[in-house]
């Protein structure tokens, strides 16, 4: 293992190596910034370009992309309330209010700091866990996934920020939306009105883009002015100060990183869930939970730490068994096969050196992309001073183009638009969007795992309690449900925030 690390380092510190890594970082940042498209698209687009490269060079490129995407995405989340990348949606919740208060620089700096630390923690965990990777993956089957999904749904109770009832309702609506489409366990199609477009269900990226980006553009369209409110200062000098905040709030950063790594390691949950759970987690351990949604820096730190640590976590099932830990990993596996590396239990054994190039690239890219962001944060934050009526149509157009580019389906664009209107309605009537999103993502996994588990056990419910991992998780879920629910109810009397 040491040899491989050294070989990987050698490979990196060559002119070509550095070139590919930088290219990856650049691509990752640009794709991360553009709303609607993210790491998955970037990797998919660049896969053919890696035909002629050596495997280790391809890995440097890909690792570069992966490490930079969510950093880029945090920028648009903070400045425009537009998630550049699905998992960055949670960053909008407090990042954007900070930008509105003229503290965009602070937020971007904090995001960069949290991303760096989170990324490092994720990768260190990955490396530490390599010897037992396979056993970890084997621990999690459908019963465990079901309990995990329940845990995620239970986090909805926490994430409501004082609007408990409407939070639950939004969650229920999210679950309803999750059922649309083909049912892999039952074998039939549900709630699609015969539409072929809805066969695949409500797609996350268009829905998210609509709920957060488009809806905010509608809101700005109604209110006018600029994003940063007139009386707010420029606050750009706060970039480095923001970076430091990630260290000051080390507990939030650590918690976000751990959540990201864990959730990233469980296939099917994904970075978006991790980010929102990290946000909820940050709210839980915060001393001022009622300020979340109004510009609490911890609400930026938690999710951003998770966004980068999840890549390290997602590599665990990917490298051990070839099970993609995230959508990006799924496309990334294509690059591996292209270079003759079959994803599966032999991957790390046969291609250890190349895999270490990837891990190294991921690490360096995390560091480097954040440095780049810190450098350009000042000019970027000026966007919040632009007249909103020039900004709105541009953001709408670019967001929708990005959404279309994902699957070349007009339906996605329409969906994004409709969710934009839905999102705006939800803002006006006080329905938290965060719970709808969590439910939309987890609903499918929860129901599918539930039925899978019962199929496995022949209808026997005890399967959820007789397997050790799911028993442990079940106990955790109950604990999770009781403590925060009580806290939320008690806090419910105070003035709630907008989310």
């Amino acid at each position: 293992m040491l040899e491989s690390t050294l070989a990987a380092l050698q490979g990196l510190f060559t002119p070509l190596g550095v070139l590919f890594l930088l290219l990856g970082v650049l691509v990752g940042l640009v794709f991360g910034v553009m709303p609607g498209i993210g790491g998955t698209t970037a990797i998919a687009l660049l896969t053919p370009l890696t035909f002629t490269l050596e495997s280790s060079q391809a890995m440097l490129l890909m690792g570069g992309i992966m490490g930079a995407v969510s950093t880029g995405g945090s920028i648009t989340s903070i400045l425009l309330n537009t998630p550049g990348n699905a998992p960055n949606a949670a960053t909008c919740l407090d990042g954007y209010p900070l930008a509105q208060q003229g503290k965009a620089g602070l937020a971007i700096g904090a995001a960069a700091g949290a991303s760096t630390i989170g990324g490092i923690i994720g990768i260190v965990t990955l490396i530490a866990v390599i010897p037992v990777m396979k056993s970890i993956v084997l621990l999690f089957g459908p019963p465990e996934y079901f309990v995990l999904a329940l845990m995620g749904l239970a986090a909805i109770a926490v994430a409501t920020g004082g609007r408990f009832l409407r939070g639950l309702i939004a969650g229920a609506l999210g679950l309803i939306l999750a059922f649309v489409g083909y049912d892999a366990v039952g074998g039939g199609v549900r709630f699609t009105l015969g539409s072929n477009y809805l066969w695949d269900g409500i797609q996350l990226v268009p829905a998210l883009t609509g709920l957060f980006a488009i809806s905010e553009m509608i809101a700005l369209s109604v209110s006018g002015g600029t994003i940063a409110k007139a009386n707010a200062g420029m606050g750009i000098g706060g970039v480095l100060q923001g970076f430091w905040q990630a260290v000051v709030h080390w507990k939030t950063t650590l918690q976000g990183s751990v959540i990201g790594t864990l959730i990233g390691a469980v296939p099917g949950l994904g970075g978006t869930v991790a980010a929102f759970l990290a946000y909820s987690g940050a709210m839980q351990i915060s001393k001022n939970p009622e300020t979340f949604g109004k510009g609490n820096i911890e609400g930026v730190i938690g999710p951003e730490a998770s966004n980068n640590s999840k890549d390290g976590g997602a590599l665990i099932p990917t490298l051990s068994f070839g099970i993609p830990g995230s959508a990006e990993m799924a496309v990334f596996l294509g690059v591996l096969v292209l270079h003759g590396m079959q994803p599966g239990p032999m991957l790390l054994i046969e291609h250890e050196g190349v895999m270490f190039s990837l891990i190294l690239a991921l690490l360096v890219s995390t560091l480097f992309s954040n440095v780049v962001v810190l450098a350009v944060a000042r000019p970027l934050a000026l966007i919040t001073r632009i007249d909103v009526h020039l900004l709105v149509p541009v953001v709408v157009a670019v967001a929708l183009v990005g959404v279309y580019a994902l699957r070349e389906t007009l339906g996605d664009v329409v969906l994004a638009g409709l969710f934009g209107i839905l999102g705006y309605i939800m803002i006006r009537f006080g329905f938290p969007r965060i719970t709808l999103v969590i439910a939309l993502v987890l609903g499918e996994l929860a129901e599918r795992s539930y039925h899978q588990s019962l199929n496995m056990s022949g209808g026997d419910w005890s399967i959820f309690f007789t397997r050790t991992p799911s028993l442990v998780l079940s106990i955790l879920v109950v604990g999770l449900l009781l403590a925060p629910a009580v806290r939320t109810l008690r806090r419910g009397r105070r003035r709630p925030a907008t989310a």
Partner: protein
Amino acid sequence: MLKTLFAAACAAALLPAACLAADFPQKNIEFIIPFGPGGGFDRTVRAIAPFMEKQLGGKVSVLPRNVPGAGGKRGMATVYRAKPDGYTIAIANIPGAAIPALTGEKVEYDINKLTWIARLATEEYTLAVATKSSIRSIEDLRKLGRPVKMPSTDFGSTAYAGMAIFGEMLKFPVQHLTGYKGTNDYIVAVVRGDGDATTGPISTMGKFVESGDMRALFTTEEKSTLKGVPTIAELGYPDLTGLGVDRFVVGPPGLPPAIIKALSDAMAKAVQDPELQAIAEKSRQPFAFLPPDKAKANADRSLALYARYKAALQKR
């Protein structure tokens, strides 16, 4: 002189089919991939496209286009509805594209009406169990005393179809555990113990055998490439040889023969290009090219086999 007469005839729209073929291709060709980027079919098309361009004279581009959705049905519907002028073709998963209709799903294309242009590749299956399992033979599967639990992704997948057919022909009852998200996911399910056995392409499952996580009971190859593992023919079921996943290139119904020939010749020559062969070898996805008539025969045989087991495929 002949050329001028021909051109005049074409201009007067007197010989439509032949005219189309004579100038083919005049504009870019769209090569549809019914799946998202990154998968095996995506890679095959993107690999061969530039080489096809070369063989077609280099004047036009062959543009890979992902049309994902509905498990591949959207892409197939797209090529089915396209104009039969040779400018829209698609790569098809056989028998994957045929299974939805067989299991009773609503489809917007008729697989039997599509034009078969070529077969690019083929991949056989193996059936394997976890190494720690006590199952060592097909007989053991029968002696289980209960249905064999076999994980797969969903009821439209080729692996599921394979399992259903194995169960029918090898005479053991199957309980399908669908719902897993990807190939490696459902294979690991057997290693974990969620299920007893499963089927999948040899390139993927072979790795699990190599790593010691699984034990293969047989393969559907003509000559087994897995050490010590018999072929299904050797076990007494030669009809099942060749059961697996094929990658065909198809066109809309009614594609003129001259255009079919132009396209398939270009692909045949492309596949022989040493550069493309090197790429294929590097990614361990060799081409196994069949020209139109042989491809059609192959496809028909495969589809007939699966159609025979329609009843088994419709069981849940």
